[in-house]
């Protein structure tokens, strides 16, 4: 198995090939061919990823250098892949979930024209390629290439239905907001190069202890801004809900399972740097928690099935950042994994619902669907339970690990710090909100009576097998996915996940909390979540449409954050742009450009007189030119 690293380049290469085939030949291939190419490449990549994973598990990871990507002065940036615990895990998630979503898409996008169908799959393959590059790169520059690639694909896929201008606007918004984060990331890379003289993870982390505190803080904060852009954290989160304009499988793949977790990956990857800066850790934790809470409150009152899931994603990402911020990197990555399962499941199930409802996304027009689309309902229910955190579903373990680690922050002797208690309290409250809005969504959608039109009612049907099979697989994963990270309190040595990641991620020393306390905390959260679900059931099992008022209205309108941004940032920028366009452009730029043109015109008209046709004047000019040439030569030689 040692030689498996030699073919690691195939993992990203195959999706790239798929992208090229589907992209270039989309007008000539049939839909089934496109599906085969699109899914097949990812499937092979997935198989190779499993091989890699097993190899890494045996301790045979490593870095493979291909060629010198950039070589400037002292700085050499190799094009290299790094296969270790962290990247192999992400490889599995990306290719595995990615494959399921590809399969799902073959059915979901069936109504598209063949060339658009091919376009869709080529984008999807390109996305997978970029994402693989992002996680496999052995330095920040390769990561950045992938980072930009996924941003591009995200843009392309959000604006997939480019004939709808609203969707284009959403795509632009996502792109611009990501760009803000990317800029910070780029500056961070420059800073790293300036301070450490390299970008390879190995070199940078080896150099890290010699970094000054300020440098470490600045670098990590800049990296975090980049991560916040990509992973939709305050203040750059508003693009993610709008990104739901894309096809639902895209939301599942890019805006829930993989791309948005790139920020988590980046920070987990840089955990050595983050551990150097207390300030950055606190910022990450607080921003993460604030985002989790804010997004959860907004999700309470959303009526678009995908919007609820989008805010839920933002909230869960906040959770992951909280985990990173309190130093529980492996808990954060664990949550990335379980979240990839259940959120992809929820999105795909939502897609199935939308499919059944002939494109309807407003849950106020649904209701009572549980009997008609049985598989979708059950899988959706499993997803809800998983995200709410009921044991033994996957969400429970990862969320519990985050809560516990939040509580234990700054604690060295088993007693809890005030900071820890506050973080824990807010995080737990957010978890309850999560359970509430997810079950609200579930009940409004699936129970009660149908509230849509007769036509829709007549049309409701279960989705075909290519859609339900991924749902079932993801549901199974959502149930059992958490079992690889069972805390020590329940099964001794059950936390295989943390153990697996330990070579790349620094662990906090010791386990200062007693098992009984841990049981108590688990019980507490489980009971509270259970109560919340019952409350949600009582309130929403027979949902009647009514207008939101008061505070609910504020929540429904997303705390008016978009409007706030509009007023504070977009409007002034717009006005500034208008000023530039109307005043600066017209007077200065146009003046310059037209001036040059007018000058040439005038000069031409004047110089034209020189061409009189008179031989005499030509000779005169010739003589004068000779004089000038002699003069120049005469003076230059002096």
């Amino acid at each position: 198995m040692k030689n498996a690293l030699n073919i690691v380049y195939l993992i990203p290469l195959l999706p790239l090939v798929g992208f090229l085939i589907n992209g270039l030949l989309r007008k000539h291939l049939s839909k089934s061919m496109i599906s085969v190419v699109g899914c097949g490449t990812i499937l092979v990549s997935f198989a190779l990823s499993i091989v890699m994973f097993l190899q890494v598990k045996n301790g045979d990871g490593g870095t493979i250098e291909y060629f010198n990507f950039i070589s400037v002065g002292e700085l050499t940036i190799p094009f290299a892949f790094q296969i270790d615990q962290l990247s192999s895990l992400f490889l599995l998630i990306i290719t595995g979930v990615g494959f399921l979503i590809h399969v799902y898409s073959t059915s979901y996008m069936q109504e598209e024209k063949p060339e658009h169908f091919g376009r869709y799959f080529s984008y999807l393959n390109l996305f997978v390629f970029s994402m693989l590059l992002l996680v496999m790169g052995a330095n920040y520059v390769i990561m950045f290439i992938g980072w930009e690639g996924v941003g591009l694909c995200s843009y392309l896929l959000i604006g997939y239905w480019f004939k709808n201008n609203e969707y284009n606007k959403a795509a632009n918004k996502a792109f611009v907001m990501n760009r803000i984060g990317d800029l910070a990331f780029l500056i961070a890379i420059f800073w790293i190069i300036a301070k450490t003289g390299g970008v390879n993870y190995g070199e940078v982390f080896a150099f890290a202890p010699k970094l000054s505190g300020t440098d470490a803080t600045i670098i990590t904060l800049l990296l975090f801004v980049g991560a916040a852009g990509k992973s939709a954290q305050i203040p750059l989160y508003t693009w993610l809900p709008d990104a739901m304009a894309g096809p639902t499988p895209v939301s599942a793949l890019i805006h829930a399972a993989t791309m948005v977790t790139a920020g988590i990956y980046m920070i987990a990857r840089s955990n050595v740097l983050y551990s150097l800066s207390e300030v950055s850790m606190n910022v990450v934790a607080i921003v993460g928690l604030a985002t989790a809470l804010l997004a959860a409150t907004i999700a309470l009152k959303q009526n678009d099935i995908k919007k609820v899931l989008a805010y839920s994603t933002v909230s869960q990402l906040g959770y992951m950042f909280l985990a990173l911020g309190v130093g529980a990197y492996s808990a954060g990555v664990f949550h990335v994994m379980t979240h990839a399962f259940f959120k992809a499941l929820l999105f795909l199930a939502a897609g199935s619902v939308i499919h059944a409802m002939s494109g309807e996304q407003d849950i106020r027009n649904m209701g009572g669907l549980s009997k008609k689309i049985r598989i979708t309902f059950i899988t959706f229910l499993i997803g809800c339970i998983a995200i709410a955190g009921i044991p033994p579903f996957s969400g429970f373990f990862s969320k519990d690990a985050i809560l516990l680690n939040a509580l234990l922050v700054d604690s060295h002797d088993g007693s809890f710090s005030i900071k820890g208690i506050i973080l824990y309290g807010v995080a737990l409250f957010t978890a309850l909100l999560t359970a509430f809005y997810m079950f609200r969504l579930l009940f409004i959608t699936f129970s009660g009576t149908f509230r849509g039109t007769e036509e829709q009612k007549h049309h409701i049907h279960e989705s075909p097998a290519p859609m339900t099979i991924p749902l079932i697989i993801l549901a199974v994963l959502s149930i059992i996915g958490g079992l690889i990270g069972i805390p020590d309190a329940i099964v001794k040595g059950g936390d295989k996940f943390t153990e697996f990641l330990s070579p790349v991620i620094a662990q906090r020393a010791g386990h200062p909390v007693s098992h009984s306390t841990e049981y108590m905390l688990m019980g507490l959260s489980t009971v509270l979540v259970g109560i919340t679900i019952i409350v949600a059931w009582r309130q929403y099992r027979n949902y009647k449409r009514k207008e939101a008022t008061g505070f609910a209205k504020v929540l429904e309108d997303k705390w008016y954050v978009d409007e706030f941004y509009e007023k504070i940032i977009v409007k002034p920028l717009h006005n500034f742009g208008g000023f530039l366009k109307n005043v600066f452009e017209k007077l200065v730029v146009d003046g310059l450009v037209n001036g040059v043109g007018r000058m040439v015109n005038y000069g031409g008209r004047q110089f034209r007189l020189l061409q009189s046709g008179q031989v005499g004047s030509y000779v005169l000019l010739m003589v004068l030119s000779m004089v000038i040439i002699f003069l120049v030569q005469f003076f230059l030689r002096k």
Partner: protein
Amino acid sequence: MTITITQILFWILSVAALFSALMVITSKNPVHSVLWLIATFFSISGHYILLSAQFLAVVNIIVYAGAIMVLFLFVIMLMNLNRETEPQKNRWIKMAGAIAGGCLLLVLVASLKNVESASTIEDVKGGDVGFIKRLGKELFSTYVVPFEISSILFLSAMVGAVVIGKKE
């Protein structure tokens, strides 16, 4: 410093050449111009003799002053050009031309005045490079091919002149 006969002749010939050259461009009557040009060529031939280039001096007189200038004279008389028919440029253009030429002279002199200022030309024993015997040998041995080619040039010039000159 003694003034040799050569120097005296040099200065006389120089003044004559320059004066007659100026007269060429200032005479109103084209026929006079031609005659002054012949005078110039004679002075230049005199210079050639001073430089002991007898062959060229003779050729200059025969070909230039003789053949070519007679051709000019012939054409001018054929066209019946005289003082009255002579077109004149306006004064400003003349002045501009004169100034431009003067500038050129100034610049050329300025840039060339230091060239090998030490070199002088004197008659030395055996300095017979311009004699017909020596040049003839050179011309018909080393330069025989260009010499023959120049005959073709003449032929083509003749043909050209006939073609251009004939009526339609």
